[in-house]
């Protein structure tokens, strides 16, 4: 057999049929469902009188719309409440496993899936959410789909697909202390642009990726969609297996051994051909900060807001001018001179236990700067509980951060956690689009350590300086 990439192998293993029109029918092993993109899918099934083919391959949870404060009292916002209630009614009617709002295991779908052991190497995973790419960290083929496709998977357990191209990203060298997966992701997107990965599945390789924890790999794969890729992939290894072992839904005993034997074959063959190759040397990377309204507009902490006059084309110059106007930034301003009024630590990108540890290490013994509102929102109830067991909540609260209940929260502000017009925020989430965190709000994407450093100094600061102190 020809040498194959990891993506080729997972694809081949899930091919149900090749149809006369050239499309392939791909089997879907796992399906994550949340309240925002599922109501119309359930409605479609109901209208067509179709059964849900395999309810047990689904894990459902409400995360986008949920309050992060006083949740026990219910949801005030009526439209949010109706959507959560619709999910609860639908999962009940169709017998779909569901993690209730007040359950300790509730959280953001992309945090919950891995921690339950629902996400396994070599499986196909979909969700009506673009950041489904997160699960690729386990060597699963995971991608976001629209609501019509959600309905398609519910009805048939398959999706018609076209094969993507293979892209390999090699991160060479060792990340400097104080930098993490978020910096890798932002640096990559800065390099290739938000459409750089379009039509591709990205496999992340190289020593800097092997050295990442599962949390870091999830952060990296989470943002592959921001580079336009269909999915991100990291081949599973001992780090993956150690993380998964003993998780509630992971295979057990003899089944675990059988799975392990298969999972060890899940790597790109030595001579496998990639359509595109990108190599980045990361040994001298500095912490990354976005300055515009697209994740590709990024520089490092020692950098300055760029001058649109240096743009490559008229179109680029116009986009940059528009972004700088929206962000209220002047060309040439040092990144360190940008002052913040808000800090958000959380989301499916950086709402895991390691992220909170990284932020807490900076917050410890310091105070949130005057005029800054800082929020810490754990990605799941289990993350929150673990953080509390380690005393991280005390560190944050003593420093003046708010400590909230799990959910998507200020990543997109579908609940009440929104920024007011003109407010500038250092955020550990994944998108800095216009209005993303609230109409007229200004988002700068950074790592958890950099967000905490911004919170305690009131402006962007190289987190490494606070680490040395």
């Amino acid at each position: 057999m020809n040498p194959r990439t990891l993506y080729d192998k997972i694809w081949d293993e899930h091919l149900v049929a090749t149809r006369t029109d050239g499309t392939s029918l791909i089997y879907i092993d796992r399906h994550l469902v949340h309240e925002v993109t599922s109501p119309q899918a359930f409605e479609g099934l109901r209208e067509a009188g179709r059964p849900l083919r395999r309810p047990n391959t689904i894990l459902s949870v409400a995360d986008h719309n949920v309050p992060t404060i006083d949740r026990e009292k219910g949801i005030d916002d009526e439209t949010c409440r109706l959507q959560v209630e619709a999910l609860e009614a639908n999962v009940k009617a169709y017998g779909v496993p569901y993690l209730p709002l007040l359950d300790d295991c509730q959280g953001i779908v992309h945090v919950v899936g891995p921690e339950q052991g629902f996400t396994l190497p070599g499986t196909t995973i979909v969700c009506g959410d673009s950041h489904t790419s997160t699960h690729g960290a386990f060597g699963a083929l995971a991608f976001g789909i629209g609501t019509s496709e959600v309905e398609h998977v519910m009805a048939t357990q398959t999706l018609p697909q076209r094969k993507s191209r293979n892209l390999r990203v090699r991160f060479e060298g060792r990340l400097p202390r104080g930098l993490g997966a978020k910096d890798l992701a932002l640096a990559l997107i800065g390099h290739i642009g938000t459409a750089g990965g379009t039509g591709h599945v990205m496999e992340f390789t190289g020593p800097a990726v092997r050295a990442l924890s599962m949390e870091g790999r999830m952060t990296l794969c989470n943002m592959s969609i921001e580079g336009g890729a269909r999915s991100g992939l990291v081949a599973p290894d001992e780090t993956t297996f150690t993380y998964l072992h003993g998780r509630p839904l992971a295979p057990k005993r003899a089944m675990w051994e059988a799975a392990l034997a298969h999972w060890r074959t899940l790597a790109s063959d030595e001579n496998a051909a990639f359509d595109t190759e990108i190599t980045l040397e990361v040994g001298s990377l500095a912490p990354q900060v976005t300055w515009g309204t697209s994740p590709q507009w990024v520089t490092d902490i020692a950098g300055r807001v760029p001058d649109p006059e240096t743009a490559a084309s008229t179109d680029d110059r116009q986009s940059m001018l528009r972004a700088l106007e929206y962000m209220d930034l002047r060309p040439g301003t040092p990144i360190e001179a940008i002052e913040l009024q808000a800090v958000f630590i959380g989301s499916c990108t950086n709402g895991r236990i390691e992220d909170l540890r990284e932020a807490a290490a900076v917050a410890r013994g310091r105070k949130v700067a005057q005029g800054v509102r800082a929020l810490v929102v754990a990605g799941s109830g289990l993350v929150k509980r673990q953080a509390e067991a380690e005393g991280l909540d005390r560190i944050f609260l003593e420093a003046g951060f708010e400590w909230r209940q799990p959910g998507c929260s200020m990543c997109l502000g579908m609940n009440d956690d929104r920024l007011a017009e003109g407010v500038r925020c250092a955020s550990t989430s994944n998108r800095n689009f216009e209005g993303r965190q609230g109409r007229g709000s200004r988002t700068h994407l950074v790592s958890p350590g950099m967000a905490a450093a911004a919170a305690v100094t009131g402006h962007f600061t190289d987190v490494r300086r606070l680490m040395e102190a």
Partner: protein
Amino acid sequence: MEPFTTLTGIAAPLLRANIDTDLIIPKQFLKTLVRSGLGQHLFHEVRYDSEGRERPDFILNQAPYRGASILLAGPNFGCGSSREHAPWALKDFGIRAILAPSFADIFYTNCFSNGLLPVALSMAAIETLATVEGPLTVDLPVQRVRGGDHSFAFDLEPARKAVLLEGLDEIRRTEANLADIAAYETRRRKEAPWVEIRVH
């Protein structure tokens, strides 16, 4: 689904690059339980001011573009979230075809699920079409866009074309493969039994 054959209509130029789905339909409108009614909120943050009044400088608030059925846009249209609310909002407004140099993957697929035609043309072609006075014609059977003295051919995968031309229901199409799916499931249970979820 309503078939798509030939469309003649007003084309609104919105020539920005990277028009993301947050811009097309912002989060506050994702709380709906239905597919319809989103047209009035299309491009909400740039179409209305903070008091909810129309901004006269926004293209879709100007005659004749209020009645546009075609959108001309810059590269990487529809990037960002997977929300199908984006094509729902476009369609509800009356847009049936989007002409742009490139599209984000998930958005592109979502268009076909809703009878919308995304047409990939070079930026130069888009800019030329934006100067045409009067309506454009998007002719799907022959894969051409015409306007004024201009005419541009476009590529489209035959399977995608068939879905639009015939207004096919994708789930019904897949149901033709039910025997293959069942056979796959039997095989997979044997070869990869650990994939079956067992709640312990």
